[in-house]
């Protein structure tokens, strides 16, 4: 019991310190609160939206393109569906897709970067030249090309984004790994005969992870935008999925007379991306003492 308390004490202290640093930055705290609301909204969407059936199944052709009102806070779309309900459901799709794409990129990028940095030599060369090939294309263009090959769907869009995003994490962690592998605790582990795999996964990766976490938290906003862009181009989510980019794409043909159709999903994207960027800044401040103000 004593040992457990001893172990947990520094972690609790560290958590408290992080919360203190986060609370000190009002903008980041605001972003965190918004994101928490967004996540809760996404999770409990069926219980909080006024028209849960409008997520997928329903059409009400007698209520087409109604402007915002007390009954429909964000108006209705061309098939009479409540846009507020669909925007809230859309949070589910956008957040899930973004987390899946970033998670998948991390799963590919972190081990490859750590292996490249730890082994060096030809292994490093091969891995880094492959990442250079991927990095030579803009991520959105590469994702478009991949979706064109795989076929249009949200799952394929997520896969395509992950496949175009991982090299950034590989490069980042490789740089860290090169520095960490020279440190004494790694050399000590090598000396006592610890296997290379154990050194990489037990010692190198945990000590390289901070910048990757910062980068990933900031990337989520970018990935949400990319998912929305692919859906806007017809390469991501398919109708009638209430994905924000797809909603804007469908709504643009009604824009001159029914502005609400595009504007509200657009605002949802804007707020979400902004909040993730602010939160990313805050996480960087917490994990990297050098960037802290005061």
């Amino acid at each position, binding site marked *: 019991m004593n040992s457990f308390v001893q172990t947990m004490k520094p972690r609790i202290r560290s958590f408290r310190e992080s919360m203190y640093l986060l609370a000190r930055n009002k903008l980041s705290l605001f972003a965190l609160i918004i994101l928490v609301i967004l996540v809760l909204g996404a999770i409990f969407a069926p219980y909080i939206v006024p028209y849960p059936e409008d997520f*997928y*199944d*329903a*059409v009400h*052709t*007698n209520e*087409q*393109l109604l402007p915002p009102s007390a009954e429909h806070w964000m108006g209705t779309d*061309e*098939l009479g569906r409540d846009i507020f309900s669909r925007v809230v459901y859309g949070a589910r799709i956008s957040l899930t897709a973004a987390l899946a794409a970033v998670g998948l990129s991390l799963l590919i990028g972190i081990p490859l970067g750590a292996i490249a940095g730890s082994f060096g030599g030809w292994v490093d060369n091969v891995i880094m030249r492959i990442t250079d090939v991927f990095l030579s294309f803009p991520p959105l263009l590469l994702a478009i090309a991949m979706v064109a090959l795989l076929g*249009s769907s949200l799952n394929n869009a997520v896969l395509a984004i992950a496949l175009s995003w991982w090299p950034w994490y590989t490069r980042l962690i490789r740089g860290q790994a090169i520095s960490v592998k020279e440190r004494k605790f790694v050399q000590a582990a090598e000396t006592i005969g610890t296997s290379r795999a154990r050194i990489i996964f037990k010692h190198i990766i945990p000590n390289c992870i901070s910048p990757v976490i910062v980068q990933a938290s900031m990337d989520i906003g970018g990935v949400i935008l990319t998912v929305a862009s692919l859906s806007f181009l*017809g390469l991501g989510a*398919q*109708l*009638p999925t209430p994905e924000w980019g797809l909603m804007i794409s*469908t709504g*643009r*043909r*009604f*824009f*001159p*007379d*029914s502005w609400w159709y595009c504007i509200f999903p657009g605002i949802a994207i804007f707020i979400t991306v902004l909040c993730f960027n602010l939160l990313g800044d805050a996480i960087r401040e917490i994990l990297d003492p050098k960037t802290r103000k005061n």
Partner: protein
Amino acid sequence: MKKLLSLVLALAMVFCLAACGESSGDGTTASASPADNKILYHTTNTEPYITLDPSTEYSNGIMVLQNVYETLTRYNPETGEVDPLLATEWSSNDDGTVWVFQLRDDVTFHDGTQMTSQQVVNSITRTMELGQGGAYIWDAVLESNGGKIEATGDYEVTITCGYPAAMDLITSAGYAAYIMSDSVIEQTTEWFNEGNDGGTGPYTIAQASGDTVVLRAYEDYRGGWTDDQYKNVMIRQVPESSARRQMLETGECQISGDFSATDLAALKEETDIVYTEQFETFNNIVMFLNTQTYPCNNADFRRALAYAFPYEETVTSILNGNAQQSVGMVPEGLWGHSDEIMQYTCDMDKAAEYLELSGVDPSTVSLTVTYISSYDEYASALQIFQANLRQLGIDLELRGMEWDQQWAQAQNTNPEDRQDLFVFIWWPDYPDPVSWFQSLLHSEDNIVYNLSYLNDPELDALIDSAISKTVTDREGAEADYIAAQQIVAENAYVLNLYDQMHTFVVSNTIQGVAENPAYSQAIQYYNVTTVAE
């Protein structure tokens, strides 16, 4: 002294250039007549052509080709018959196997050469030899089928068919029937796509760049030109309905169509700027059901789908009345159409009844429907269909695609990899029901447009019989076509969704915009004139 001379010369040049380019205040220059500089802008939601080869183009290029090339005859929608165009008169033998066309003797090609019968023969021979696009319309003339085409006088062409064929209708086709100069016969499709042409029509192609085509008047056109006509036409793709609407409102374009229902409704209110022209077309929207694979190989399941489609809602709510529900394959206004053919209505009780009869467990079924993603009305209608099917417990996945992708999947050699449902628009190659039956419903060894993958001997026999009777026994052919449509409806091989109407929104400054249903999408710009103030 040299410096002074240089200065005087430079000033003189500047004055000369300024004089040459002096504006007359209405966008034209003083050196040319107003008619020479006026430009008619037509914006479209699709690209104006796929190719510009008059022998092989089989799509949107009709918008351009109808103004650059001409055919021997032209369909008249008011009489339902064909009128003379490059031919002055024609006759056939009793069984419709030998046709003699007399040609005009005052037609010149854009290269200045005179049109003679040999060039007509060479044009049709080129199209037959290339065998692409709508070239099948000449099948009866193929040597392998016992046919031939020959010049039997300077201005007389004799076409011998291997079997009876309505050559007067075939020569009026919007595809594969264009007459071109001998000077371009040997040219490739790429050469035509660079913006070259060799037609006899009122316009030549001045520029072609994928999404834009510029047409310029052929000054020696036999009909002549007047000042109120447009000698320059720009056809440009602007995919967004709202952008096309804005261009009309600001006067940046004078003709456009294919607006979303809301944009069209708004434009109809702006009577001080524009007016609308609505035309019946021979275009209809069909949904093919994959009869080769489970569960659409089950006739009762197909009938359940047929009763679940929201026909009326599509016409009223999605298309705002700019269409009508189809009755059979052949649209109203064309021979072969009958209002007596069985017509499905949206009836969810009947759909559930047929689903039960089919024995298909809906929970095990997941259907996919493919459609061209740029057609927003398809997406809206299919979402209502999807919601209706959900009531039956059937899952429908919507896949909006580019046409090439959609068609490639439909032609996959493995039937299991094809879609369950396929939506697209069809219009005839020439005003004859054969276009729907031969292309869409007749069995074929290699799948082209038979996208329900039908192989029904009874249907094939009726189609073959109708084709053979078209010239000699029109009533008999019509009866066969009607019987064929009844089979298609009863078996729900294809769902006939709606017949399209084309609405053009036109600037108040021009008149004469008209669309002939036999040449869907094409406007004869030669007939468009400015409105006198």
